[in-house]
């Protein structure tokens, strides 16, 4: 093979080698759990193909290692006796990525690796020194002939184009309707022409009258015939576009196996580190999911696996005492429920310990003892997802660092999914992740805030309707709707998204959303119906924008922004929703000080969204002048500013007779404890970090400092 061909093939080889090694590792684990000859055949096939490819590209060292691995696989005994050999083979698997990145000849390390494998295989396996025929009998299937690798970006672009075609198809249907309307008007004009022809006939000009009438009839017939043909054709094209979009979005799906295949191996390694045993079974790995979903699932699944090994499964001795088999079981199952993908990670370990959860939550100061005692079932288990939650007093080697489950939930909700934990039927623990299978085509409910259109996944909408003020009640400052036994929080979308005021209508329209166990009624200015849209990624620039999960182009060319249901439901539950009555929160006059116009803009939007009045100052001196001139109920200031910085401003405010009692909140990008201390020492009442600033936190702080009302 010439150098250029080799260089061209090398990246593909590296990619496919990684996939094959993963398959081989998964096969080895299945063998260990009693896989049978089919597994051995598969191992041979993969090893043999990989060896052939390695040889083709000149990786002689690697091909020797693989050859020795083949011999060792031949010698693999059944059951637990295979473990030391499987260990050695897995170590060899781990070495492959390094070898394909390294020099082709491989060097001493490869020779040692091959030698080690050969020694384990014993003398019997040495027999065929050169080419070993693949014992599976069949030569490896010629993959290249039936599949093509396509770059994901290209496929995404094709998917986006297919989505656009779909929108264009809908537009064409709209134009057909317009055409029909136009022709009806011509037809009405034709009626007039026919009447005029009659008149002509009465006046004796029969010939002209006949010609006119005939032309009108002919034109009308031809026009409507054309319209029908055209409408049929547009309908057909639209159908084809839909099919195309559907197929492309199918083609974009990546099998879950790419993600799941490595998990049994990971579970085994983790368990070994802790002196535990585990058998990890995967089901539904052939399901295809959107690449974006797959990417979002990687970290959460690995973390859930670690969590199961670390917290769920007991050590063998404890399991035997409890009458369980010494090896723990972890089952990772994927299945489709309509358009939703459901992934469960279930172990047969010690299960959820309500007392341990309560104790940990109290130790971490996440909730008060009284409240904790009242918590039970799903609400109690939900504490596991709180930021910083851990039942370990000391961080464990594997998990228990208190960063895990919160991240699991966040990653899954970012793609419009949910994560819950529940007791497994057998006594263990089960995590259930649900999310859309594909983000490409989605049935959505369109809602309006003023003139702007937003989309909510229809799967999350339980219904739509109007909210009658008589059904509203207030519980602990939260506006809620009585629905039978249930109280559903109510919030208006405009204020929720800091876009504008709540609708003034007496009985405003609302969408009833459900996310997992949580519900919320979202009040909107108008409902614009349900439809299927091609969802686009909002693009790199908008990645991380609050509530935003995607965008769709509507037939009229407007963009509808796809909102995250979990985000909306959670925000509605937090917000003391002023719907439809005037705000219950006290309106404060706030002086906002920041030298950055952008920062001021952001914070002013938050404050106004909370219903407060804002005056802006560009530095400490400017703020001091404005304080003297006006009456304010709170001061929000940045730290690093020219002329007079926030610390000196806070000191000056505290030192003055007039403003000594004015609540001062420092809003800084610096989060170090000594910075906080410096701020509080200067007399600030609160110190908020810009990067972590939320409407909720700001609102709560102001409420705490300024009181509920005066």
């Amino acid at each position, binding site marked *: 093979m010439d150098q250029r061909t080799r260089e061209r093939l090398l990246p593909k080889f590296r990619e496919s080698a990684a996939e094959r090694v993963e398959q081989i590792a998964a096969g080895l684990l299945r063998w260990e759990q009693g896989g049978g000859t089919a597994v051995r055949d598969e191992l041979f096939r993969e090893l043999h193909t990989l060896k052939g490819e390695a040889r083709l590209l000149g990786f002689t060292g690697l091909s020797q290692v693989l050859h020795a691995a083949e011999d060792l696989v031949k010698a693999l005994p059944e059951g637990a006796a295979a473990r030391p050999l499987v260990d050695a083979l897995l170590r060899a698997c781990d070495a492959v990525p390094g070898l394909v990145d390294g020099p082709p000849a491989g060097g001493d390390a490869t020779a040692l690796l091959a030698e080690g494998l050969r020694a384990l295989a014993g003398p019997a396996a040495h027999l065929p020194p050169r080419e070993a025929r693949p014992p599976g009998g069949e030569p490896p299937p010629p993959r290249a002939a039936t599949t093509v690798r396509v770059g994901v970006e290209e496929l995404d672009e094709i998917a986006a184009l297919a989505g656009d075609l779909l929108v264009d198809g809908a537009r064409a249907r709209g134009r057909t309707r317009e055409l029909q309307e136009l022709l009806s008007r011509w037809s009405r004009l034709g009626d007039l022409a026919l009447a005029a022809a009659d008149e002509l006939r009465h006046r004796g000009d029969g010939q002209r009258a006949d010609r006119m009438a005939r032309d009108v009839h002919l034109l009308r017939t031809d026009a409507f015939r054309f319209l029908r043909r055209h409408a049929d054709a547009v309908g057909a094209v639209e159908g084809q576009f839909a099919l195309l979009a559907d197929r492309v979005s199918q083609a974009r799906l990546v099998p879950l196996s790419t993600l799941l295949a490595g998990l049994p191996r990971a579970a085994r390694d983790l368990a070994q580190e802790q002196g535990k045993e585990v058998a990890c079974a995967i089901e539904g790995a052939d399901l295809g999911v959107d690449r974006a979903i797959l990417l979002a699932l990687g970290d959460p699944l690995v973390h859930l696996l670690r969590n199961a090994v670390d917290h769920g499964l007991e050590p063998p001795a404890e399991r035997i005492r409890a009458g369980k088999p010494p090896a723990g079981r972890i089952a990772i199952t994927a299945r489709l429920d309509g358009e939703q993908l459901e992934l469960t990670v279930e172990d047969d370990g010690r299960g959820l310990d309500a007392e341990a959860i309560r104790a940990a939550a109290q130790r971490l100061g996440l909730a008060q003892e009284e409240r904790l005692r009242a918590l039970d079932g799903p609400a109690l288990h939900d504490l596991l997802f709180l930021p910083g939650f851990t039942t370990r007093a000391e961080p464990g080697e594997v998990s228990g660092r208190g960063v895990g489950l919160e991240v699991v939930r966040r990653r899954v909700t970012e793609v419009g999914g949910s994560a819950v934990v529940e007791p497994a039927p057998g006594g263990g623990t089960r995590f259930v992740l649900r999310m859309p299978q594909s983000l490409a085509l989605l049935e959505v409910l369109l809602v309006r805030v003023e003139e702007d*259109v937003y989309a909510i996944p229809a799967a999350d909408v339980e219904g739509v309707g109007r909210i009658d003020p008589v059904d509203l009640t207030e519980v602990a400052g939260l506006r809620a709707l009585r629905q039978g036994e249930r109280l559903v929080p109510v919030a208006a979308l405009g204020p929720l998204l*800091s876009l504008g005021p709540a609708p003034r209508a007496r009985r405003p329209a609302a969408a009833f959303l459900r996310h997992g166990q949580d519900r919320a009624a979202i009040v909107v200015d108008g409902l614009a119906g349900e439809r299927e849209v091609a969802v686009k990624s909002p693009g790199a*620039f908008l990645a991380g924008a*609050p509530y935003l999960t995607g965008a769709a182009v509507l037939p009229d060319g*407007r*963009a*509808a922004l796809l909102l995250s249901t979990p985000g909306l439901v959670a925000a509605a539950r937090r917000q003391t929703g002023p719907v439809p009555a005037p705000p219950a929160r006290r309106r404060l006059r706030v002086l906002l000080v920041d030298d950055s*116009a952008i920062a001021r*803009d952001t914070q002013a939007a938050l404050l106004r969204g909370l219903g407060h009045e804002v005056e802006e100052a560009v530095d400490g001196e400017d703020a001091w002048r404005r304080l003297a001139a006006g009456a304010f109920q709170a001061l929000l200031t940045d730290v690093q500013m020219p002329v007079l910085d926030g610390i000196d401003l806070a000191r000056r405010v505290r030192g003055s007779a007039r403003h000594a009692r004015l609540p001062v909140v420092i809003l800084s990008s610096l989060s170090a404890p000594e910075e906080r201390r410096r701020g509080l020492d200067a007399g600030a009442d609160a110190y908020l970090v810009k990067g972590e600033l939320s409407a909720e936190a700001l609102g709560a702080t102001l409420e705490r400092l300024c009181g509920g009302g005066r």
Partner: protein
Amino acid sequence: MPEPREAQSAAPDPAPGEGWLFCVRAGAGRYGFDAALVSEVVRLGPLTRLPGAPAALPGVFTHRGEVLAVLDLCRVLGLPAAPMGLGARAAVLRIGAWRLALLADAVLGLVQVPAAAQEPAPAQGGPAARWLRGVGRAGAEPVAILDLPALVQDARQRSFAP
């Protein structure tokens, strides 16, 4: 925070692309930036507002099937908002993986300012000081040359910090 960054020293050539600047008007000032960042000038479609976004990001619109966020340069610079009626012209920017539309009071177009006609930024640079790389002399009115990628990055970070 407001000290002008040492961007000048970090970028040896203050205006790549043979000195071609894309110029816009914001308030009373003429601002220019590397013309290579602009892929086209488009007319704004109807905007859909972004949840929880500051006024500098008034919304998104669609252009040939692509959803583009609009960044209002005037608001970034602390000036009154740029007019954004239907048909207002905006420059579509490509900055790394980011695609967005930059709006200002007016699009002025391309101006060539050779390196010799560029001067370092003055010590007091006004609202744009943070992102000012220099001042170009072209015609009667000077052009404030912006480090646009830095400006966009700051605006984005302020808008939705992780």
